[in-house]
């Protein structure tokens, strides 16, 4: 009751604190949503294809776009013991005209039936002819919907969308999956001087009884000039992914720290200002637990309002920002962030709680205005 009354009488102070916490929660949540969507849009295609091992050329430094596997290496990789099946997977960026607009699109060329096929098909079917393609569901409204036709601007080849994938974009761009023959035709049409169209990586599935990591190790041991990675390694170690991850983690740690510091110091100042009042309360019989509970109530109320404000702002921003990059906020991210903010607020307020717990009712006798000696 005391806690609520104080808040009602000091709306500005508590309002400012809740507002600051709300904005910090918004920053934390929005950046997490951005990070998740960015990483998924960077590497979703690698994560959701059927090859459990991907073999890159060594000089590509785990970058699909910079990798080329030459024919002798392809033969050597296929001959490694433990390989169940192998197939070339090519990737390139093309200018595609969709719905009358030219857009940059990543195109993957895969061998139908072989490793490297998209695995998150949600509508339609996989392509079977060179002029068919599967697109990302996330881009369906931009002219990449089922039954739509898109045209490769540099070469004039028209592709019909026959299926849609989810969570399978690459390099934060609309992503199409075509047969390897279709990819070869697109490449040759865009550059008549191309001497060969080679796969960017080789996708592998291990033979029965062989794990993906064992197979990757065998390929690295037996074939020179290539780097084999398991699918999860290829996703997590893709260029840019780890640096984006580290940068955002640092930003998030700083933002969480600011939450703890702001809340902790706010309640500390407030407690110091109220010290004499709290001492009187203790002297007239209010137990320590009553004062601690009142303080905890205020902390939970301020953090609760801050969380609601932050979540609402984030949901609004996510809705508004989904034009370029399909940003989404996972419920688990919200829950984990909320729990983290509450815990950090309690940690930040620990010193204040201890101070309240240590108030000695006898100190009231030191108050000059109560006849004490000070």
């Amino acid at each position: 009751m005391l806690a609520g009354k104080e808040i009602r009488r000091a709306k500005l102070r508590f309002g400012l604190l809740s507002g600051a916490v709300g904005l910090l929660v918004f920053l934390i949540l929005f950046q997490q949503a951005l990070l998740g969507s960015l990483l998924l849009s960077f590497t979703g295609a690698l994560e959701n294809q059927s090859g459990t091992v991907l073999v890159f050329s060594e000089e590509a430094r785990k970058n699909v776009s910079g990798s080329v596997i030459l024919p002798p290496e392809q033969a050597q990789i296929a001959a490694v013991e433990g390989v169940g099946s192998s197939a070339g997977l090519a990737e390139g960026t093309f200018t595609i005209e969709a719905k009358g607009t030219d857009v940059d699109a990543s195109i993957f060329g895969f061998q139908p039936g072989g490793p490297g096929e998209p695995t998150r098909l949600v509508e339609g079917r996989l392509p079977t002819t060179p002029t068919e393609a599967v697109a990302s569901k996330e881009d369906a409204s931009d002219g990449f919907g089922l039954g739509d036709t898109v045209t490769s601007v540099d070469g004039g080849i028209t592709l019909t969308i026959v299926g849609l994938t989810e969570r399978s974009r690459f390099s934060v761009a609309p992503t199409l999956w075509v047969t390897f023959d279709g990819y070869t035709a697109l490449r040759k049409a865009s550059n008549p001087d191309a001497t060969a169209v080679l796969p960017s990586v080789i996708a592998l599935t291990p033979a029965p009884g062989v794990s993906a990591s064992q197979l990757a190790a065998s390929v690295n041991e037996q074939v020179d000039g290539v780097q084999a990675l398991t699918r999860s390694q290829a996703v997590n170690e893709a260029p840019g992914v780890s640096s984006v991850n580290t940068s955002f983690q640092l930003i998030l740690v700083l933002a969480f720290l600011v939450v703890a510091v702001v809340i902790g110091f706010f309640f500390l100042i407030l407690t110091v200002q109220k010290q004499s009042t709290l001492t009187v309360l203790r002297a007239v019989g209010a137990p320590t637990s009553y004062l601690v509970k009142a303080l905890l109530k205020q902390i939970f109320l301020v953090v609760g309002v801050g969380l609601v404000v932050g979540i609402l702002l984030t949901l609004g921003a996510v809705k508004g920002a989904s034009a370029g990059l399909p940003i989404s906020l996972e419920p688990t991210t919200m829950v984990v962030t909320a729990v983290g903010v509450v815990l950090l607020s309690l940690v930040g307020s620990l010193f204040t709680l201890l101070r309240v717990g240590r108030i000695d009712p006898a100190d009231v006798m030191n108050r000059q205005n109560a006849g004490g000696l000070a």
Partner: protein
Amino acid sequence: MKLGLVELRRKPLRFAIAGSSLVLLSVLLLFLGGLLDGLFIGSTGLLRSQPGELVVYSSDAKDSLIRSRIDPEVRAKVEAVPGVSATGGIGVALVGGQLPDKTDLVNLSVTAFQLPVSSMPSDVSLAPDQALADRSLQAFGVDVGDTLLVGSAKTPITVTGWVSDTDYLQQGGFFVQPDTWREVLADSRPDSNLPPDTFQGLTVKLDSGADATTVADAIDAATGGATSTLTKSEAVQALPGIKEQNSTFSAIIYVTLFVAGLVVALFFALLTLERIGLYSVLKAIGASSRQIFGGVVIQAVIVALVSFVIGGVLMWLLTLVLPAEIPVAMEPARAVQIAVGLVVMSALGAAVSLRRVVRVDPASAIG
């Protein structure tokens, strides 16, 4: 106002609470700003350093250098356009390079040039096996005299000097002769092979007094729409992700500045509350609301500036331990922008206490 300064000098710890929050926010702001600048510089250096005012791509490349191709016939049409003083072919191959005695590879943007970029001597001359490397590659162990094995064919190329601010799409600038670039491109990406005299793009120098936009339009008209000609700044903005990156990071920076304002407002609201009695005494002996409020604002500004300096030092220490892969660049202009933002938001935050200061009644000093 003086009283405010005296209090700051004698009781600096009283302001440590707001200060520590602002220090953390300063580090956050500088890191965000540094990351934004680092990403921009590392992606756009090649285009920004071009000597010409215009960049010409083939129209079907959607302003992407890697997908563009300008053959000699198109180039001749460009050169015939009135206002064009000179053209230089440019091309890039994004490949890995291996350092001598090291297994690690560095990301290179092997770049062909015909007109020297801004950081090169005007009479630059390279042999087929020589290159000028961007200074950013020093962080990855590259030095003058090193012979790097470049691309799939491991073509040996020796670094003979430095260029600066020429990176492209986060890969280190590595300037070579056009024929060397074509060789690397053909070996590493056979599907991107280009014949002799064909480049991916052109940098176009203009006659003095020529209007860049008018000449750009004239070039695209002269080539019958086969080209897309952009000014240098348009070409930079057309790079994938640059605009989105800029708007997202700027929004995060502005929200963080707003949080800083709220923190300062909160702190000074509490501080003012604590000093109500003192303010009434000051008013009773003749101090005006303006003087008292001026003191509060000056305290907020000084706390913000000191916090920014401490945050700047912490950020500088952080850059020393951050891995080279994280593209953080500390630009003076960005630091000034953040410092000004922080000071303005702090002053605005402190202004929240104005109403309470004005309402202090001098008569309350006597009970």
